[in-house]
């Protein structure tokens, strides 16, 4: 069954989209043309398409300022999407620490 995490990971599977998220994380808010300037090999419409994909997952949000759309990263969305993935580790780590406990106390 698809979960929000699957969408997030699918969105993150693309290196251009990861780079967009990196740029937004580093610089806060960027316009489409500022972002497009970072990808000289891609057409601006391609960047817009990636941004729409990221916006559909909630990983980025946009706000219109004058004639420009300003994009920013939604770190909390990413955090909540990743939570189920992280939760898979809880029993794994409990078991590992239990083994360490027994080894260290036995010897």
């Amino acid at each position: 069954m698809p979960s929000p995490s699957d969408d997030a990971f699918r969105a993150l599977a693309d290196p251009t989209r990861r780079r967009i998220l990196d740029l937004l994380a580093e610089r806060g808010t960027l316009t489409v043309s500022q972002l497009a300037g970072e990808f000289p090999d891609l057409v601006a419409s391609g960047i817009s398409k990636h941004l729409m994909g990221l916006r559909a997952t909630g990983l980025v949000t946009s706000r219109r300022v004058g004639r420009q759309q300003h994009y920013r990263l939604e770190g909390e969305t990413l955090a909540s999407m990743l939570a189920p993935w992280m939760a898979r580790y809880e029993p794994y780590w409990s078991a590992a620490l239990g083994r360490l406990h027994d080894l260290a106390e036995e010897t």
Partner: protein
Amino acid sequence: MPEVVRSVDIQAPPSAVWRWFTTQESLRRWLGPELEIDLRVGGAYRLLGPDKETWISGSVLELIPEGRLVLSWMEQGGDWVHPSRLVISLVATSAGTRVTLLHDGFAGIGKGGWPSTLDAYELGADRHRVLEQLAELVTTGGA
């Protein structure tokens, strides 16, 4: 940020607990029997994940005797390598040692810690280098 934190109190001093962190063989006893690790700062490792199918790989970020072991943690799967960080720290207590394990996903995204996540991306993108390190590890016997 999503994270897993677990602690355990052990009735033994940190020196006795750290014994289980000093060699690949001793780490295998509790961390995972398939572990392959070049146990020094910058050294590569790999380990089988919770599903017993997905390989985890990364490198040793910190190794402080009787203090802490920090690993970069990348889950290999499909096109995307999930980067996170594992911190295992030892603190002496009156009864012995408290061992705390912190596994944080995307440490510091959108915050000051973001560059470390960027580094993890680059390691993930450059998976072959990780594999090269592993190959080297295997051929040198992982001593």
